[in-house]
């Protein structure tokens, strides 16, 4: 009988419960905030901050005779970096990354500009064109570039067949090849933020500037570039950061002749088995990226207002 009674008493419908729960969350902004931020924060903590802490700890440890990590604290890994051998690697990396960024900007800006100005149906076609490379594996695409650049590759064969050259031009395993590979790989990361910026740009401002006596170059430097600066800054950062730490591209297209910081780290971890030094170099790289990004933000941000 008790059971029957219980069945008869109307229990609150689940919808009501859900409403009350939502209300409760709404009333407590702290709860709301932790619900929104919680999953992301958890992810970052477990898979970013903790490993980062491990690497930081390693960078102050020493290497044992057989490549194991010995917990004898030292600054040696950092001081060791200030050897010309490693400084050179660092300078080459920054130089290649800068070159890549500038080339991406110079190629990407006009492309993004055209993309933002053509009729809508063309715009989507161009957008797909930018995205298509993401559909295949980066490694495969890099091997494809190798096939193009080899001494017996497509370009050299074509040039020889046309009689322009007699001996093949060495392109593979040069800085040129590495920069080419990086530009190819990271160009979309430049184009997309630029496109977003230029698309928002009000083109009547171009007419206003022309009307006030500005020629094409002045219209670009005084009006268009400052107002699309957020896209330039975002795109440059998105290209520079992965470029400066790249290791697959310099490994395959540089063939060991062009060594970047990424290759150094990879070697230390996998070949030399000096994890503490590899960790230290990783932290130096992070510091470089952080400092240059902040400096860049400051310069780019000033002109934006």
């Amino acid at each position, binding site marked *: 009988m008790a059971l029957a009674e219980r069945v008869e008493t109307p229990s609150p419908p689940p919808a009501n419960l859900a409403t009350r729960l939502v209300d409760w969350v709404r009333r407590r902004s702290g709860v709301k905030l932790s619900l929104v931020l919680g999953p992301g924060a958890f992810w970052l903590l477990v898979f970013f901050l903790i490993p980062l802490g491990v690497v930081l700890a390693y960078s102050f440890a020493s290497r044992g005779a057989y490549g194991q990590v010995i917990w004898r604290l030292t600054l040696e890994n950092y001081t060791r970096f200030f050897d010309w051998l490693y400084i050179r690697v660092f300078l080459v990396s920054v130089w290649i990354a800068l070159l890549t960024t500038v080339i991406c900007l110079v190629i990407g800006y006009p492309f993004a500009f055209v993309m933002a100005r053509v009729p809508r149906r063309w715009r989507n076609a161009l957008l797909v064109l930018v995205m298509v490379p993401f559909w295949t594996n980066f490694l495969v695409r890099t091997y494809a570039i190798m096939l193009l650049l080899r001494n017996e590759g497509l370009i050299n064969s074509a040039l020889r067949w046309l009689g322009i050259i007699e001996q093949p031009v060495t392109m593979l395993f040069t800085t040129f090849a590495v920069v080419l590979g990086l530009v190819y790989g990271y160009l979309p990361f430049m184009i997309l933020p630029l496109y977003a910026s230029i698309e928002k740009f009000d083109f*009547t*401002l171009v007419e*206003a500037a*022309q*009307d*006030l*006596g*500005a020629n094409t170059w002045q219209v670009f430097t*005084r009006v268009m570039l400052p107002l699309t600066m957020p896209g330039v800054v975002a795109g440059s950062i998105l290209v520079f950061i992965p470029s400066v730490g790249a290791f697959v591209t310099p490994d395959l297209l540089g063939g060991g002749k062009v060594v970047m910081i990424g290759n150094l780290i990879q070697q230390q971890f996998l070949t030399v088995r000096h994890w503490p030094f590899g960790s230290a170099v990783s932290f130096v790289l992070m510091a470089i990226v952080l400092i240059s990004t902040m400096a860049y933000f400051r310069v780019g941000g000033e002109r934006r*207002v």
Partner: protein
Amino acid sequence: MSRTADVELRNVSKVFDNSVVAVDNVSLEIEQGEFFSLLGPSGCGKTTTLRMIAGFEMPTSGEISIEGRPMGETPPFRRNVNTVFQNYALFPHMTVAENVAFGLRMKRIPRDEIARRVREALQLVRLGGFEDRYPRQLSGGQQQRVALARALINRPRVLLLDEPLGALDLKLRKEMQLELKHLQMTVGITFIYVTHDQEEALTMSDRIAVMNAGRVLQVGTPLEIYERPSSRFVADFIGESNFLDGRVVELNGQRATVVVDDRVPVPARAQDGLAIGEQVTVAIRPEKIRLRSLGTEGADGCVRGRVEEVVYIGTDTYYLVRLTDRCTVRVRVQNSQNRLDSSETIGHGEEVLLSWLPETAMVLKT
């Protein structure tokens, strides 16, 4: 006083890529120091005409001259004209002072002269003290004035204004209309003003060109445009008009008699080239018609009708009066008496007499 043409358009046409004829064989002469309006509904070609004068569009055929010099393909930055854009087009990343100084910077004018002229220009539009604000920190009316200062500081020969008051609310628009007119008289620059607002055009202009479907229909002073519309479109677009279709039965000097619906003869002002028997339209403004109760018959030029509707709108009262089965006219009578006290009000269903001065009714050929 003979004045020289500042801007001259000769047989100018503009056909866009999609073979839309935006401007169709327009010829205009705009005099120096004149406040000239291009008035018409949206899509009539007035903005395209303005953009061709500014140099943003090139005419497909015809010639535009500024200060007597044919412009040809001269780019905008080499023309001695400046534009105030519909949405102002202020540079959002520059302060008010930087916006206003932009034109002079491009001309590489010395710094202290720029500073002085910026101050003057901002004073002229009553925005002194706003130098360091950004456009987004200003109200619509203030942005409007920055746009004016930015254009006027260059001392252009001609200032082009593309519906500059369109985005403002009614009250501010009325204020700015008078301010603009005042400013134009102060600086003495030729203004070419594009608008679809007939009242705005009538208030400010020295002369108006009424446009429709890419053509200029009539050019004249506000008075001429309003009192002597040359076509049904102009009579309809500017102000309000009654249109009575009929046949000319009598011509007597300046006066024509047109029979509406074969029954009602109405008086009108004759124009040249009119012939007896011709099918025409008589256009008459509602406020030009006098309305009386029946009983004073015999007066010259009176037309009989029956009141069908009475609408009181405060300053005036509208009457809808039926003349024939197919023909009604709207009459607008100013409420000069207190209608609550007056016993002689004309009511619904009453038989009335309509009269007007023949010269206030235009005969338009159909």
